[in-house]
């Protein structure tokens, strides 16, 4: 084991852990807003797939990665809007509509992939940018401050989300819509409008999360490339107690364990790779079971109906 924990290995684990955390952060922070306002969107994985596809396709065809990112956000936002319509306006059972959205996104992204790309090709995605000064710190500079823009963006999103959620009027409205919609409604908060905004925003973030895979981290698109990451992203929201900083902790923990198991495999330690891949999932279940329990937003997954309690 001593061989495993040399300094370069540890630095390598931190480096890949940070990269792996990126898509989770985008998707989970978006979902944090949706859930804080009372809507549970289980379709994140399907949205991520569509985001990954549209980001890749537009990025490749136009040669402009930013255009790809925009496309991913717009497509994700539209799917979020669809989810909002079904869960807020039609007041549907949210867990199941999420599964519908997931199947839809999985099917449509595979369909479009086969029709427009046909085979797996890679592109040159967002390149790492070294941050001046910070990037020159010995050891840590390369690990922490030499990533591409989408990685920085994901980590910047956390303080911004926390600020918006806890220090602005909008954030207060969001939390009120999720905690006590009746009271908030009586004070003039437009519950349904608030939920539409958060779920659409969550969709856009999930789209960007998918694009972060296809045009910044892995730089290719293939069918079902998220492999259930969107579901993990939803779990991380619970894990993080519906708070952006908590979500960050969860995303980092999950990603570091994932990076660790990748290294274990690379190092050829005598542990079957399939068992190693299991580790993060087992950890997530244990964390959900034994972590300090935070109360979920009281009105989570309950459609709002004026005059009901």
């Amino acid at each position, binding site marked *: 084991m001593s061989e495993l924990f040399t300094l370069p290995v540890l630095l390598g684990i931190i480096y890949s852990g940070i990269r792996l955390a990126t898509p989770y952060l985008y998707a989970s922070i978006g979902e944090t807003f949706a859930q804080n306002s009372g809507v549970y969107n*289980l379709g994140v994985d*399907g949205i991520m797939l569509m985001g990954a596809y549209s980001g890749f396709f537009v990025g490749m065809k136009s040669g402009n990665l930013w255009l790809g990112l925009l496309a991913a956000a717009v497509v994700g936002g539209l799917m979020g809007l*669809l989810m909002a319509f*079904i869960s807020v306006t*039609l*007041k*549907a*059972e949210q*867990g*199941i*509509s999420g*599964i*519908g*959205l*997931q*199947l*839809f*996104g*999985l*099917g*449509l992204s*595979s*369909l479009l992939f*086969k*029709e427009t790309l046909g085979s797996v090709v890679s592109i040159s995605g967002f390149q790492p940018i070294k941050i001046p000064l910070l990037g020159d710190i010995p050891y840590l500079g390369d690990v922490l401050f030499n990533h591409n823009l989408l990685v920085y963006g994901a980590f910047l999103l956390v303080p911004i989300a926390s600020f918006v959620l806890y220090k602005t009027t909008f954030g207060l409205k969001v939390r009120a819509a999720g905690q006590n919609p009746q009271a908030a409604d009586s004070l003039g908060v437009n519950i349904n409008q608030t939920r539409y905004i958060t779920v659409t925003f969550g969709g856009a973030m999930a789209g960007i999360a998918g694009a972060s895979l296809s045009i910044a981290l892995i730089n290719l698109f293939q*069918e079902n490339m998220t492999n*259930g990451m969107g*579901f993990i992203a*939803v*779990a991380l929201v*619970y894990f993080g107690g519906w708070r952006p900083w908590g979500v960050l902790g969860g995303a980092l923990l999950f990603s570091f364990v994932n990076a660790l198991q990748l290294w274990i495999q690379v190092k050829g330690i005598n542990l*079957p790779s*399939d*068992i190693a*891949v*299991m580790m993060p*999932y*087992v950890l*997530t*279940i244990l964390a*959900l*079971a*034994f972590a300090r*329990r935070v109360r979920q937003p009281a009105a989570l997954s*309950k*459609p709002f*109906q004026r005059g*009901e309690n």
Partner: protein
Amino acid sequence: MPDQLEFKKLLNRTLEALLPLLAVPVAFLIGAVMLLALGANPLTAYGALITSGFGDLSGITQTLTKATPLLLVGLGVCIAFRGGIINIGGEGQILVGALATTAVAIGFRDLPGWILLPLCLIVGALGGAVWGGIPGILKARLGVNEILSTVMMNAIALQLSNYLLRGPMIDPAEIANGTRIAQSALLPRSVWLAKLVPSTLLNTGALIALVLAVLVYVFLWRTTIGYRIRAVGLNADAARYAGVRVPVYQALSLALGGAFAGLAGAIEVMGVQHRMLEGLSGGYGFSGIVVALFGALHPLGAIPASILFGGLLVGADGMQRSVQVPSSLISTLLGLVVLLVVGSKIFSTRQSRRRQTNE
């Protein structure tokens, strides 16, 4: 005017039962637009879809073979949903059930068939029940959200299956040949399910599923345990005041749901593949949810629903061959069907709450 009330109630119920049926034509209308956009003639495409799924004996037997696991998983989803639990763990439960069946069938291959065959079915159901029971107990004891834990259990089961099929359970012939395809040895012939139509894949598993659908109906509506499961699902607080131990019945409904998915895995192994291989669950865990929803979460409704969707899955391949449209179009349409069914009124929370107060 009690007669008029009764009539209204009946009318409402009929409408509720028929509403999901509208979802398929609407989804296929959207699908037609997509087909046009892809440059295919929707009529030709759908024609190929229907004829290859239902057009001849071969198509029909294939459809019924696919409908079998769909029906079983759908029944499991029905039970869990009636208990207020959403079971998304079908994929994992199928795999674990299939693995357990395979291990027992190969490990005890010398037992007489009349013991081994039922034993294999039971072990498959037990495997699924354990895999559904773990999230069930986590939900009951520690309040862990079952949607998330079942999703995690799917991922864990997949890795477990990959590990076992590449290592301990791999067919010794694969190692001898050096091909190393991740699959188990063939099951002893004594546990192969009898064929219903010679030289097709359709087997007695379909009959088992059909009988179970009726039994699930009896269980949910004619037994005390079934009544309690439904009570917990309809209104957990009311059930608690009435003295029902809510956590026990939540865990039970999820374990039972898992048992049905596990049995689906067992039948897929014993009746269709005759061995365990990678990708055996084949998305049935998710399509089973669609089947349950489309059958209005009623075990008898799941029967026609499973045949319809089994036919769509078979037909999708036929469509791909005839108009070169990827069969993933069907997965897209399934997603749309779910969205449309869930979005239609019967599943809206407002409606169900109103129904609770009325009855």
